[in-house]
């Protein structure tokens, strides 16, 4: 989609989701808001890790950066007596800027690392969060974290719109905006540079791409998205605490990105939905099981992790491009079933099907006596 097409599409998606909240229970609206918050972070991660090839386990730390930026800004403003839409939007901007600044600093260091070294470095960031919050417990509230004063829904909406529904609106708008921005970034000049650097950084540099800057920018963009996600989560839960942004969250975000389809923004949507609704539905399933209370207690929470792990293994074995990869393959098969099979020249999102080896005879290049032409796949 071009920018001119993606803007109406984004507006339509936001309108449809906001309309949807009118028929949802308040609790489901709340879940939808958390989906949107996680979606921001997963979309950022899928850009960094999928398109940029930089494996990061630090996404939860950047979310925490956003959440604490949000909390500090919101509480400072509430203390100063500021109310109204500013109290709603300024902390979110602070969350984005705070996390982006973190991402910029981290990116400058991380730009020199790759593969497992980068993963190790970002892992250390997440592990350091509780230590940071307890060291600066005066400001960050230690283990307990911070409670946040949030702007409630406008008086005019009271009675018709629940608070959860109102909160989900802001989350929906933010998530749609993040998706639109990332979509346009990826399909433009920056996206090409990013994939070129991931694939062959030497060739990219020789073509004039600044490799280090591309890596740092991708880290910063990913951090800004995570920060907005963290800010939204802080807004929805009205708190920011170290326990919410543990290593487990980082791993869940990465799992969600992989299960949804790493590198695909639509895949990030599936990942975010699964991340919120899978544990919830499994937990309500175990609550209904006719088993002893002791067993039910042990199943509660743990079964969801087991299912998540199993799904991850199955996805890696059977559908390496995730849910979105399955969907695009199914759509292509459906389209081709009615018509003539398409020749291989339509690349699409190849990868699982395409091999890196010789491409076989090239259709249509056989009769070219002059200029440059090849007739065989491999000389």
């Amino acid at each position, binding site marked *: 989609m071009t920018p001119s097409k993606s803007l109406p599409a984004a507006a339509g998606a936001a309108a449809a989701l906001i309309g949807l909240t009118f028929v949802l229970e308040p609790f489901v609206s709340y879940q939808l808001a958390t989906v949107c918050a996680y979606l921001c972070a997963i979309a950022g991660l899928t850009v960094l890790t999928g398109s940029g090839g930089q494996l990061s386990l630090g996404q939860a730390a950047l979310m925490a950066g956003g959440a604490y930026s949000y909390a500090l800004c919101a509480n400072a403003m509430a203390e100063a007596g500021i109310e109204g839409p500013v109290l709603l939007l300024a902390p979110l901007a602070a969350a984005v800027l705070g996390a982006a600044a973190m991402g910029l600093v981290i990116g400058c260091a991380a730009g020199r690392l790759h593969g497992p070294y980068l993963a190790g470095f970002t892992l250390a960031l997440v592990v350091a969060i509780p230590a940071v919050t307890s060291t600066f417990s005066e400001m960050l509230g230690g283990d307990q974290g911070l409670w946040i004063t949030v702007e409630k829904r406008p008086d005019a909406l009271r009675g018709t719109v629940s608070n959860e529904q109102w909160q989900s609106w802001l989350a929906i708008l933010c998530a749609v905006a993040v998706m639109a921005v990332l979509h346009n970034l990826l399909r433009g000049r920056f996206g090409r540079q990013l994939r070129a650097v991931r694939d062959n950084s030497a060739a990219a540099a020789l*073509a*004039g791409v600044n490799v280090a800057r591309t890596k740092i920018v991708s880290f910063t963009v990913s951090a800004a998205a995570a920060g907005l996600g963290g800010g939204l989560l802080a807004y929805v839960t009205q708190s920011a605490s170290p326990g919410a942004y543990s290593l487990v969250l980082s791993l869940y975000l990465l799992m969600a990105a992989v299960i949804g389809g790493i590198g695909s923004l639509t895949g990030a949507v599936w990942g975010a939905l699964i991340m919120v609704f899978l544990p919830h539905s499994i937990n309500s399933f175990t609550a209904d099981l006719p088993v002893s209370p002791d067993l039910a207690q042990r199943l509660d929470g743990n079964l969801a992790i087991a299912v998540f792990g199993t799904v991850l293994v199955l996805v890696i074995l059977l559908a390496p491009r995730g849910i979105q990869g399955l969907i695009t393959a199914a759509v292509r098969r459906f389209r081709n079933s009615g018509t003539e099979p398409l020749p291989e020249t339509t690349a699409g999102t190849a990868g699982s099907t395409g091999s890196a080896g010789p491409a076989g005879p090239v259709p249509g290049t056989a009769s*070219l006596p002059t200029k440059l032409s*090849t007739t065989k796949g491999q*000389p």
Partner: protein
Amino acid sequence: MSGLLVLDSVSAGYGPVPVLHGVSITVAAGSITAVVGANGAGKTTLLRTVTGQLRTTGGSIRFDGTDLAGTRVEDMVRRGIALVPEGRGVITELTVDENLRLGGLWRRDRAAAATLLVRMYELFEPLARRRRAAGHQLSGGERQMLALGRALMAGPRLLLLDEPSLGLAPRITAQILGLLRGLRDDTGLTVLLIEQNVRSALAVADDGVVLSLGSVVAARPAADLAADTDLRHTYLGF
């Protein structure tokens, strides 16, 4: 004679291992210079040093009168130096079109880049048919064309090629080398070519440089070198 690219007793190496020992080469503007030599003579290292992927440990490299010391790899292309890396460094996940446009990405002048893109598809007809194919779906010859096209998209004054014949059929090698000759005649492009395929490289080049164990052992007109039987026997093995 002042050349477009002048290497003055350049030394370089990997860590404690020196590879180039005081190499001096002058590449005249508008000429094709072929650097030949056996495996391990330092040919690729020479190109890596010129493009700034490897730092010199001594000597200087001057391009069009300016010292290249400290120029970053990604800025080389802005100065007018483009390299076609060994092993056809196409970005396999990008399409043909995206690969070519990557070569002109640094340009601010988008119209010029678009014109060049059209020109590349005229030059490399097989690529025009496979615009939307991913890099990994191309054949060896197509990949070499794509890598060459991407370098030319930068509109370079100096084109560096690392083993363009590697793994290609002789006929395609001849076509690609012939194309370089045509580019030199039409646009005045200066080419520095690294080749193991000595015979065809010297056939297309104006000047030849023989590199052996990191030192220049001969630098003469290419026809001269090709005719020198003793030199060929001693250093090039045919």
